[in-house]
């Protein structure tokens, strides 16, 4: 990390209980190579112990520290301050959209977890079922390749909720399953899990998506939910056409 120091204004969303939301500014001296979560932690440690935020792993595995940074969904543990502001600049830190705010920067992600349950994607896989060394992972025929060496990180959804926050439709359709959930369904595939068809082939399933692709733009884990929703639509259509011709 360089010795360079920047002065940055953290404008932080605050909300407690039923109180009105407001913004509070904290001016910090930071290294531009620190991450946004470092600044938020420093506010909590040295300025205001009542600030509520979530974090755990600090290396983009747990998905807990998702927030909106200057209006864009970011996993704050891998978002360098240098990349989102400048010396003397501002960082507007807000909670994710489209989830209820519990307090300050923490949201209730039940919507995501309930959806994951609906498509039988448990949060924790038993070790015996873990797809080790590629076994058990059967990518669709035309899955994009990463330099021809490895498949894109198929199973790497960290359930951070950034995609649901970025989705413009999720804000007006509370029952919409959302990008991460539909991606989890696509990963399983309708051939292997035909019972998922009735969960996803409905108005609040694949057909609610309006192709803004904001989910793919903000996903920190290369899941590419936008592509997966479109592929799931293709699977649904293929299944319907097959049924018209008397197939199972």
């Amino acid at each position, binding site marked *: 990390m360089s010795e360079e120091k920047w002065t940055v204004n953290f404008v932080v969303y605050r909300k407690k*209980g*039923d109180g009105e939301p407001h913004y509070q500014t904290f001016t910090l001296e930071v290294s531009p190579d620190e991450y946004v979560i470092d600044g938020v932690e420093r506010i909590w440690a040295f300025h205001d112990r009542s600030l509520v935020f979530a974090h755990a792993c600090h290396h983009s595995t747990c998905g807990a520290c998702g927030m*909106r940074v*200057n*209006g*864009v*969904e970011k996993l704050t543990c891998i978002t360098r301050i240098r990349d989102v502001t400048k010396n003397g600049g501002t960082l507007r830190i807000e*909670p*994710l*959209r*489209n*989830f*209820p*705010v*519990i307090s300050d920067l923490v*949201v*209730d992600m039940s*919507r995501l977890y309930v959806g994951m349950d609906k498509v039988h994607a448990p949060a924790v896989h038993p070790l015996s079922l873990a797809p080790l060394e590629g076994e058990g992972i059967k990518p669709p025929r*035309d899955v*994009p390749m990463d330099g021809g060496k490895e498949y894109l990180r198929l199973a790497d959804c960290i359930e951070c909720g950034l995609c649901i926050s970025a989705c*413009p439709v*999720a*804000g*007006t359709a*509370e029952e919409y399953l959302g990008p991460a959930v539909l991606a989890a369904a696509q990963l399983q595939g309708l051939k292997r899990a035909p019972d998922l068809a009735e969960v996803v082939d409905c108005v609040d399933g694949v057909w609610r998506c*309006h*192709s*803004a*692709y*904001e989910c*793919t*733009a903000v996903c920190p884990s290369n899941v590419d939910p*936008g*592509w997966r929703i*479109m*592929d799931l*639509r*293709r699977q649904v*259509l293929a299944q319907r056409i097959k049924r018209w011709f008397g197939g199972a």
Partner: protein
Amino acid sequence: MESPAKKPNTRGILDWFDPRGRQVGGWGFILNRLTAIGLTVYLYLHLVMLGKLAQGPEAYDSFIAFAKQPLIMFGEMLVIIGGLYHGLNGVRIALNSFGVAVPAQKQLLYGVLGLTLVGSLIFGLRMLAAH
């Protein structure tokens, strides 16, 4: 312990049109929504105009004279731009929905914008030439 709030943190349809932080696909979505609303409003106006036909030739002629004003012609131009964009973007979304060219959705959107521009220019020039 206080129970968590249940109301989602959203501004509803205002978030559809918020351009801040949007990527290319998001801009496509915003334009699609705006043109959809515009075309719906136009449809109602169009039906009102057609209603003039039932009020006799004089009412119709006076409406046609009114419709030749520059402001109305500008409105017609917007209808063409909106119709072209909305229709062509519909084709893009339909292709994507069949799993076609999803990784190229940005390039397809640029194509949609390009065709909309060309089509609108052709229509605009023809409209000016006719008056």
